[in-house]
């Protein structure tokens, strides 16, 4: 029963090897790509293993941007980084951007927004972020770019890549609607940063 699904995943992993070898971005790199664009021309500081942050100004708010350190293929440690920044900076909003699994009939590259920590993996980073956010009574917003499991580990497609501007517009809208000038905001780009520099 599950053999076709295993074959699909094995085929995707096999094809992904060429993509990683050439340092080309994969579908999962959309989070670091979106936040990395906001980080350009700002000083980057190490905050956890393979994880960097930068400070920027978005609509008069202090934005702390967090993502894995590219262009190597790593997801960093967003859990440790966000936990430390929440305790240190006492922000009023946390926005997380990640790739998310789409349903069979949904379009690739579609952007959805919601509430909660947008992060996959085995749950360690998610727990750390949710624990720190709950202790600080911090609202967590999620913006996700939909894609299939195969697309997430394969070469980034045009539909996924072109969602960058849409997500930037949503970030700006959430910040203007949910925060006041001079507030601090943490924006996290979750995912594998292969082929993306900040």
């Amino acid at each position, binding site marked *: *029963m599950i053999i076709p699904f295993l*074959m*699909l995943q094995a*085929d995707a992993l096999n094809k992904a090897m060429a993509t990683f070898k050439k340092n080309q*971005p994969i579908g999962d790199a959309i989070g670091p790509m979106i936040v*990395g664009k906001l980080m*350009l021309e700002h000083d980057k500081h190490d905050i956890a293993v393979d994880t960097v942050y930068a400070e920027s100004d978005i609509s008069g708010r202090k934005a702390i941007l967090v993502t894995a350190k590219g262009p190597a293929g790593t997801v960093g440690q967003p859990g440790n980084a966000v936990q430390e920044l929440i305790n240190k900076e006492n922000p009023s909003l946390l926005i997380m951007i990640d790739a998310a699994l789409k349903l069979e009939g949904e379009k690739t590259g579609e952007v959805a927004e919601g509430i909660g920590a947008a992060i996959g993996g085995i749950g360690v980073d998610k727990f750390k972020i949710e624990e720190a956010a709950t202790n600080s009574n911090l609202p967590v917003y999620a913006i996700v770019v939909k894609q299939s499991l195969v697309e997430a580990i394969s070469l*980034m*497609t045009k539909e996924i890549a072109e969602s960058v501007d849409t997500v930037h517009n949503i970030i700006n809208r959430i910040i203007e609607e949910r925060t006041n000038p001079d507030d601090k905001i943490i924006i996290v780009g979750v995912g594998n940063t292969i082929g993306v*520099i900040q």
Partner: protein
Amino acid sequence: MSLPIMGAPDKKAKKLTVYTIEECVKCKKPDKREFKDGDLVHKILGKCKDCNENIMISLIYGEEPKKN
């Protein structure tokens, strides 16, 4: 019978061509070309001929080659 339809790798899947989109950070003029080794998203490539600002790789993605 239905199992291969559900999830087997599609042998007829077309090979994607990798494109790099270069863009001037000021005048936003995009330039699409095929991917070259060493291309990275957000890498600065040089100066724009029109406005002398940096030209940056804004996107790298795979797309089916267009039929002529």
